[in-house]
Structure formats: structure tokens, C-alpha cells
């Protein structure tokens, strides 16, 4: 371990490799913000491991001057599981795309989240397969025209956060590629969360799906198009003069128009709580869609429960306490044995 990590800067996390993303790709901003956050996390650089699958987004580890694995399509969570389960001392980050993580890798995503292994998953959602040149993905909206859907996509999309919540995710958040300050805040929260922390990062692909998130990426329109979640604060959004809130009853969300200076809580607006044990509340938030509702960003859910890696280490340590460290000689001689004498 080094003791100089406190002095590290974002530069220390930049590798010497040329970055190959298209100009204007949202991945640049995400990379820069991740590099900015790393020095503040109190982790020596050599203890970071970035693991990815395949896709434009999955090139990410090459650009991080940490340990990294660029693996195979969709399987990054499984590699990360092996790393973290064997070495809980490491800070393990998965970088994946909407195709990598929810199409070919949907199964691993589900099971990794359900086990609550203590890793961070950054899912770059550009709602398209970038690397393979623009086919629709599992998050693409119905009707999207692409090279493989010339008549429009007929696949119903999945919402990454609803998926994660369905799998029992203990930490679920949404960020925007270009909103650096907010993204950094969520990266820190994800790092501090014990258990699987999933952040969906809305990412623009200017080449194959430009402006998919324009409404929330643009600072001005974001005010009316996004709902910034703050723990303990009412679900209020909208520009000065057009403030609105969200009420939630029986899982049904409604927009409440707020008059100037009206107390939102008194008006029936729900108060955000990250810590509800039931995922139903966060699921209701994850179901809010444009244009009828604002798109929530921030932490949807943060609850604590035992992590897979801690339970596994606990079983190993417990077995040693209970049975003593294993002896190979005793193992080989366990059960019935017999001796054949020299004759």
C-alpha cells in the first residue's frame, strides 16, 4: 500500500493510451469525472480495478491508469464478482453499456445485483449499440429506426433502474454524462455504499443516437425535464413560476402544479426517502417517463444489507475458527483407511 494517495490528482488516473471515442461522445465527460473523483476516495491507486465487457463504453478501463480488465461481451459483472470475492480489499468498478449489460449480459447483471456483491456498476445508457454501428438496444424506444430495424424497432424497452430494482438492488442512481458535479457526487455515494451500487449514466452517442437525452443534458431544459432527487426533500421540479411536484399514492404518480410559495408537502407532494425497505417506491420513480413526467436523477434507493463478499469471507473465517485451519494430511486420511503392511 502506498501512503501518498492523498496527493494523487486526476492526472494520475489518466493512462498513456490514445482515446478512441468519436468526437463529442458522452463517454469523454464520464471518463473525466471518474478520473476527478478517484483521488478523493481514500483508496490507493493500486487497489482500483476497472472491469468492462465489450462496446464503446467498455473501452473505458484502457484509459484509466489503474488495474483493468477489458473482458468479453456482457460478462464483466461475473469477472468483477471473482475479483471482489477473492480480494475484498480491492475497489472494483464495472463499466458496461446498455447492450453489454442488459442484452447479452442481462443474466449476470441480475445475479450480481441480487447477490449484493460490493462493487460499483456504471451502465452507460446511450440507447443504442455504438460499437457495432448503431443497431437498436434493449433500452431503445419502440419505433426507433436503425440499420437492423429499418421499419422501426418493435422491441419493448427495459428501464435499467427498474431492472436493477427488480433484482433487489440496494443502491440505484441515475446521472447525466455532462452534469459533472452531480455525477461526481453519485460516484462518491456509489463508492461508499456497501453492496452493489448501480448508476445508470445517460450518455449521448452523437453518431448513432444523437440527442437522445438532449432535454436533460441541456442545462436550461433540464430544469423542467428532470427531477433532482434529494433525500428528505419533496419531489419538486420545474422552473421559477412553473414549479410542480410529484405525489404518489398506491404506486400511482401524479403531477401537482404548485402555486408560488405553496408548501409542497402540504399540497401532497411526496418526500423523497432513499431508505424505504420496499423497492416499490423507487420502482414507481423509475417508472416516471417523459414527456408526462420529469426524469428523476440522483439516488433512487440506498439501503444496506449483507454483501456477498463479506458473507463469503465470513464463512471462510468461521470455518477456520470452528474446524481449525485445514490439514491436507488429515483430509487425505479422513474416513475409512486401511494399511497394507510390508510382507
Amino acid at each position, binding site marked *: 500500500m502506498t501512503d501518498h494517495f492523498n496527493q494523487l490528482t486526476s492526472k494520475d488516473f489518466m493512462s498513456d493510451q490514445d482515446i478512441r471515442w468519436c468526437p463529442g461522445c458522452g463517454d469523454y465527460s464520464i471518463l473525466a469525472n471518474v478520473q476527478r473523483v478517484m483521488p478523493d476516495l481514500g483508496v490507493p491507486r493500486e487497489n482500483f480495478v476497472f472491469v468492462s465487457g465489450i462496446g464503446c463504453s467498455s473501452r473505458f478501463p484502457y484509459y484509466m491508469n489503474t488495474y483493468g480488465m477489458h473482458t468479453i461481451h456482457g460478462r464483466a459483472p461475473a*469477472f468483477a464478482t471473482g475479483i471482489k470475492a477473492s480480494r475484498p480489499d480491492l475497489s472494483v468498478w464495472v463499466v458496461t453499456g446498455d447492450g453489454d449489460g442488459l442484452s447479452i449480459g442481462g443474466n449476470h447483471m441480475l445475479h450480481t445485483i441480487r447477490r449484493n456483491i460490493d462493487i460499483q456498476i456504471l451502465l452507460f445508457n446511450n440507447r443504442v449499440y455504438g460499437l457495432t454501428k448503431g443497431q437498436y438496444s434493449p433500452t431503445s424506444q419502440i419505433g426507433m429506426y436503425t440499420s437492423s430495424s429499418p421499419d422501426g424497432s418493435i422491441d419493448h424497452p427495459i428501464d435499467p433502474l427498474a431492472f436493477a430494482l427488480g433484482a433487489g438492488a440496494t443502491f440505484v442512481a441515475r446521472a447525466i454524462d455532462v452534469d459533472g458535479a452531480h455525477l461526481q457526487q453519485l460516484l462518491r455515494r456509489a463508492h461508499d455504499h456497501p453492496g452493489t451500487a448501480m448508476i445508470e449514466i445517460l450518455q449521448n452517442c452523437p453518431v448513432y443516437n444523437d440527442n437522445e437525452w438532449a432535454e436533460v443534458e441541456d442545462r436550461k431544459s433540464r430544469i423542467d425535464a428532470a427531477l433532482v432527487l434529494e433525500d428528505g426533500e419533496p419531489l419538486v421540479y420545474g422552473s421559477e413560476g412553473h414549479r410542480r411536484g410529484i405525489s404518489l399514492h398506491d404506486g400511482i404518480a401524479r403531477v401537482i402544479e404548485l402555486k408560488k410559495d405553496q408548501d409542497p408537502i402540504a399540497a401532497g407532494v411526496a418526500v423523497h426517502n432513499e431508505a424505504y425497505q420496499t423497492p416499490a417506491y423507487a420502482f414507481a420513480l423509475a417508472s416516471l417517463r417523459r414527456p408526462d413526467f420529469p426524469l428523476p436523477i440522483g439516488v433512487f434507493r440506498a439501503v444496506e444489507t449483507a454483501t456477498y463478499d463479506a458473507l463469503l469471507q465470513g464463512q471462510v473465517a468461521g470455518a477456520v475458527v470452528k474446524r481449525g485451519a485445514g490439514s491436507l494430511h488429515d483430509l487425505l486420511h479422513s474416513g475409512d483407511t486401511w494399511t497394507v503392511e510390508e510382507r
Partner: protein
Amino acid sequence: MSRKAPGKTVQQLESVAIRFTGDSGDGMQLTGTKFTESTAIAGNELSTLPDYPAEIRAPIGTLAGVSGFQIHFSSKSVRTPADHPDVLVAFNPAALRANIDDVRPTGMVIVNSDSFTAKSLKRAGYAEDPRPALRDRYAMVEIPLTRLNREALKDLDINMRDADRCKNFFALGLMYWLYHRPVESTERWLESRFKGSVLEANLRVLRAGYAFGETTEILPVSYIVPKAKIQPGVYRNITGNKALAWGIVAAGELMQTDVFLGAYPITPASEVLHEVARYRHFGVKTFQAEDEIAAICAAIGASFAGELGVTTTSGPGFVLKQEALGLAVMAELPLVVIDIQRAGPSTGMPTKIEQADLLLALYGRNSDSPIPVIAAMSPGDCFHTVIEAFAWAVKYMTPVIVLSNGHLANSSEPWRIPDVDTLPRPKVGYWSDPETFLPYARDPETLARPWAIPGTPGLEHRIGGLAKEQGTGNVSYDPRNNEDMIRLRAEKVARIAADIPPIEIDGPGSGELLVVGWGGTFGAITAAVEAARQNGKAVSSIHLRHLNPFPKNLGSILRSFDKILVPELNEGQLVRLLRTEFLVPAIGMNKVRGQPFLIEELLARIDEMLSEETSP
């Protein structure tokens, strides 16, 4: 217990093969296993073959539900479970029907006469009672097992169903008497396993079965099979799967490195996961993954992090692992992949035997991605094979494939327990010096790259599946570099041959016919070749454990014989390799019935080969 049977004849035999058969609920595997333990303690050489139905709960009394366990024991050397049992124990008509054709002519057939009811005859598909016809051809021993068993338990507070479930131990007791086996090990086992009335019932019927043998008129003769000449040492029984599991645990201990096993349940590999999971106190971690892909990926992740990654599976799961194996080749990380082959293709016959994944192991990935392959040749050899695989994996920084099969997995043999101090202790060394570190610099001798694990300051680096530049490991699309790297990786695997001992020939070093086997067919081939030589035939054999790379002297041995026969439980895989690699006129002998080779069929083919004119 070696009570003398008064007034009965005792006859000495060199060897006996017994097959215990019954409904899958009758406890035949347990009966066979206990008889095996007792036989090992009696000092015989032995070999066993369990055969169970694929269905967990097939309808009672049907052919689909028949379960069997064969044991062959002898005062001489035993290589196989025997082609034909001398004795068949059949608990019901279905078991009789399913097995009778395998019994040696005039062999002994012991049946539970209580089970020959109209209903069970019908279930077994018999139009009429087969026993009268069989009495002329076999030594039929008809015992009212159900009634005798109930009788022995009549004053015990136990319901009829539980009482009937003990009857396999009655039969076991009888067989112990018949072959002069000690009952103590079984009694000890029962005491460790059960208590109360269940323990009492089982102990009682075991002893009652033994006593029945002593007194019954039906069995006038009992048999002694003298002790075999066995190398001195401490022995135990071991199945191939247990040996694999213990090899995994042992590798961690010997290499002083924690083991991480990722696996997804599949027949016949699941027991390895079950067994290893019991040894957390060795620091061994098991991870039951969501599928075979996740299992291998997690194991590779653990290897990257500095542990001994291993994954266990069978055919269909092995297929799923191929893409990740390709990554392990590219990333040059140590990894052991164990494929316990089963009969295919597709889901095939999961509980049956084949050795048809050799070409998959060697060539099952996209592009040129060579991986060393070792095949275990006996249950006990599985233990050493796994340790050898880990040693290669770490020394050469490469995935290594271990092939076993369903036969080795489930059959047991007496195994001389190795002295832990004499086992190899392969060295594990992680790179630590940042000044001299290059992720893909190579050791001049082994061509291995350094193992640099997270947590080591100054060695931060990225690996992955994209083509790697020599030395730096940076992504490179340079055409020459790619070709060089593909050839370097192949050369690295080829250099492992330096660690492989030369193959020893069983029989003369040159001559007319060489039989070449690999993996789990060792017993049958050796037995057949030895028998042929005893018949005066000029035939030798070699058995390959190392399939990639081959032992260095393989080519010269092959060229020293006029004819080469390659028996395989597949449609001709090793034979293809030998022909292409060494340009020798090797001929295949192939069987894909889900069953092992019979010695007699190998002998017949050997005779045929020797009588044929040599043709180029």
C-alpha cells in the same frame, strides 16, 4: 467378523465380479459402496462401476428406474470392473431383466423371490415369470428377502415401510458372509450415520443377513478371494470426482495460495463442487454461479486478483466456457478448467460414459488459441492431474484443461494415500518490481508473462481480449505483431513438453502392434493388452495423459511399430491427431454407446489386427 460356517464348504477363487441391481430407491449404490469398502479392507485389488438411471425418480419397478453397481475384486491385479459379472444380485424383476444378459454363462443370480409378483413382472415387461427358464442356465439363488427382512425386525418399533427400506443391508450382510468380507466397517458407518430405531434396524438386518448365510441350505458354499499383493502403504477408496476435489484443495495448500472455484451444477461434475464446498477451512472459496459462463469468468477474475482460479463442468457447460477460455489464452492468466466428459451430443446421455471432448478442448475456440490438455487415467490419478494442471498454469501463465469422464468420476478404486511431504510444491511468484515491469515481457525459458496482481503499487496495467503488443501489452493491430504473438503463445504451450516425463511402453519397445489409449480407458486397454500378451501375441501399449503438448518421445515410439490401434470412446479423435501430427497409419477403434470398452472386444480387435496383412 470371521466366524466359521460349520458344515459348509469354502472354495477359493482368484477373482469375482458382482453386480448389485435394484430399483433406484433400493439403495444399490450404497450397498455397492459399502461392499467395496469392506472388500478393500479385506485386501483385494478392485475396480467398481456404478450405473444409475438419469431420472431422479423413475417409476418404481420399471426398467428406466434400475440402478446398478458392479465390483470386480481379485487376489491378482484388477484393471476394470469386468466385462461380465459372475454374480448378479437383482432386487426386482426389472433389475433382473435389465441385467441378466450381461451375466457370465452359468453365473450366480441371486433374486428377491418376494418381488416376483404379477404386478412387478408386468411393470418389468415380463409376460411370464422368467425364473423357470433361467434355472437351467444360471445358478439361481431365490431368497424371500422381503419376508426374511421383516422377520428380523418384527419386535422392533418401526413401520413396515421403514423396515422394507433396510432390506439392502440384509442382502449386504448375506454377501459379506458369502465372500468372507468383514462387516465392521459397515457397522461403524451405520453408527456414525444413524441413531435410534433406524440404526438398530439396519444393524440387525445386516447381522441377520450374515447369519442367514451361515445357516441356510440354499447356499452350501462360501468363497474366499485371497489378499492381493499390494504395495505397502495406507489406502482408502476414492472416486475420480472426490480425487479432483481433493486435488483442488491440495493445490491451494501445496502452492500456498487460496483457491477460487466457480461452478454451475451439471452431471457428472456437480459432486466436485459439493465436495470442495466442504473445505472452506482450507481457505478455499466456492462460487455457485448463475451459469457456466459466469463460473469461468469469475474464476478468471480471481486469477487476475492472484488466486488459483478453477472451474468444473461437463460437456454442454464446457462448450459455454469456450469464449472465456479464449480470453484466458489472450490474457495469459493461470486457470484450470476441468471437463468431466459425458455421453453426447447435446444433452445426450448425461449419466453415461464417453471421451469425445478432446477436439473441443484442443480446438473449440475461435482462431488459434492453444491450451495445454491433461487427461486423468484413473480415479486416483485425478488427484495428481489437478495438481499438475495448476503447476503448469502458474509456471507458464496459461489456462490448462483437465479431462476426466463419467466413468472415472463415479468409479472408485483403492488409492494409496500419498505422503504430503512428497507431493510437488509448485512455486507461485507475483511480480513486484515496477522498474522492470512490462505486462507482456516473457520469461526467456518458459515464455510466461509476469503475474502482476492488483494491490501492487506501480504495476497498474490493463489486460483484455484485444490483440496485445509484445512487451507492453497495449492494444495493437499491427499485423506482424499479431502473428508473432499467436506463435509465441503456441511456442509457450509447446515448451511445456520439457516438463512431461517420457511415456513408458507396456510391453516390447517395438514390434507389430501398438495400442494407444488416453484418459479413462487405461484399465480396459491395459487389461486387454496384458491378456493378449499372455496368449502369446506380440502387442504393446502406451497410455497418454498429456494430450497437449504430447510427450517428446511419442513420435519415435509410434514409428517403432508396424500397426497402431487407437481405441477411443468417440468417433476417432486422438487417432486423427496422431495421423496428422506424426503421419503414421494409426487405425481407430470406436465405441459411443455410453459404456466403457469391454476387454473381450479389445482383445478381439487386437487379434484381428495381428492377423491382417500389413497394409500401408
